[in-house]
């Protein structure tokens, strides 16, 4: 065995290199989750709400420069909901209420009654949330 002994030169240790990967993944996820939570709770300056799905604004309850409490109604939106009934697809128009997720203050309202909105496109409301809560 003249040239090289792979058992000694360490080349074969490639085999053993990923034993702790599962733990590494868990540590990585913990870091990501903590970063997202801390960012949303303490760092993000304002929250811009967009439509959760395509639809039409039915009413706007939020008023600019007022405080809102967790659970307060912000606006209502009419969306098409697909439901299966007896194996058949039915499309129904339903009005969904969007509530505040945390205490905070409404900074501005750009949504108007009757607006047609696209999912995640236009900004509807801008909120400032109480620090330490998850908006």
């Amino acid at each position: 065995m003249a040239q090289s002994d792979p058992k000694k030169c360490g080349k074969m240790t490639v085999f053993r290199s990923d034993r702790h990967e599962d733990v590494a993944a868990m540590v990585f996820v913990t870091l990501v989750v903590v970063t997202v939570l801390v960012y949303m709770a303490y760092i993000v300056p304002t929250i811009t709400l967009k439509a959760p799905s395509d639809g039409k604004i039915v009413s706007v309850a939020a008023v600019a420069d007022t405080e809102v409490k967790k659970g307060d109604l912000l606006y209502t939106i009419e969306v098409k909901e697909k439901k299966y009934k007896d194996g058949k697809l039915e499309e129904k128009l339903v009005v969904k209420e969007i509530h505040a997720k945390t205490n905070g203050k409404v900074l501005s309202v750009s949504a108007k009654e009757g607006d047609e909105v696209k999912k995640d496109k236009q900004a509807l409301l801008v909120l400032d949330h109480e620090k330490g809560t998850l908006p």
Partner: protein
Amino acid sequence: MEEKQGVAKVVSIIPGLAVMVLTLYVLRIFVEPWMTDAVVFGQKGWFVKVLHLNYILLAIITGMLYRNVLFGGKIPEWAEEGFRTTRLFIKSGVIMLGSLYTIQSLAKVGGIAIGLIMTFVFGTILFVMWFGKRVGMERSMIGVMGAAAGVCGVSACIATSPAVRAKPADVALAIATVLGFGIMTMFISPFIGHALQLTDYQFGAWVGTGILNSGQVLATCLAYNPTIAPGTAVAYGEIWNVVRVISIPFVVFFITMWYWRAEAEAECITLGGIIKDKFPVFVIGFFGMTALSSLGMLGAEGSSTLKLMREVMSWIFGLGLIGQGAYIDIREIKAAGGKPLQVGLAAGVLKYVIALIVIMLFVSKEASF
């Protein structure tokens, strides 16, 4: 291929990782929006509406192009360490997917998933044992193919083969078979799903049961519907996946017992030992995330926090899937052949079709959560 340590190791990851990040950025920020608006054959958004392309499929395809065309069949050394992080990303993504469920919803759908999967897992294993014997495959390879076709494809191959003393060269061919079948099903399943108008729930249940290699279950679900949220294909498919992953040690135990029956060595094999050796620890992380979301510690459903979390998840998956694509070598898969191919194809197609029929007949369109 010297093993690097510490800082050198981290630095060696950067080039490959940078390629993956940059690729995903270009795909998501430029290519995907362009595809949505592009007019081909007189139809706006033809790529999306007809080909059902989205950033997930694009990520995998681009990865495959890197490996097979740009790099000429082998990931170059400068990029290798970086591309190796793909497993870390996908594992992390899977752990984070745990946040889509609550304990109650897992319990509801989990029951159906466990029932369906166990039936199919052991049904397939028995089929492979019977069919493998008919075509005269070696006993050790019957064990490996049984595990591969029954549970998780490549993972099950790897987990079983040391226990049944299968020749690594044969295992390599079995892996190529499983991978080839998985890639095929990954690209055709979304078309079949759209053609049959399967709901996300049915689609997730079907591919979760029917696709051989679990690596591709996730990608297929995301390809069908790239939204990451409760009630989407990936949310259902992943429950199926997790049940499959958890069942690996049990299947390995079952096959090992079958292989070594009536031989002295069987005495030292215990279920406990196999679970300890083979249990995928990251599943604990998955349930940890479910626990956190059940306690409401990750924000309320519909909140901006969860939205950001899912956005991050989609980037993590995208990165991982580029790497996954780059590990697919078409030439190696084409080299698959012989008895593993026969048995794998027979078992794979059978499972895929029967699973579809069962799901269309017996699984409701809408999930209970």
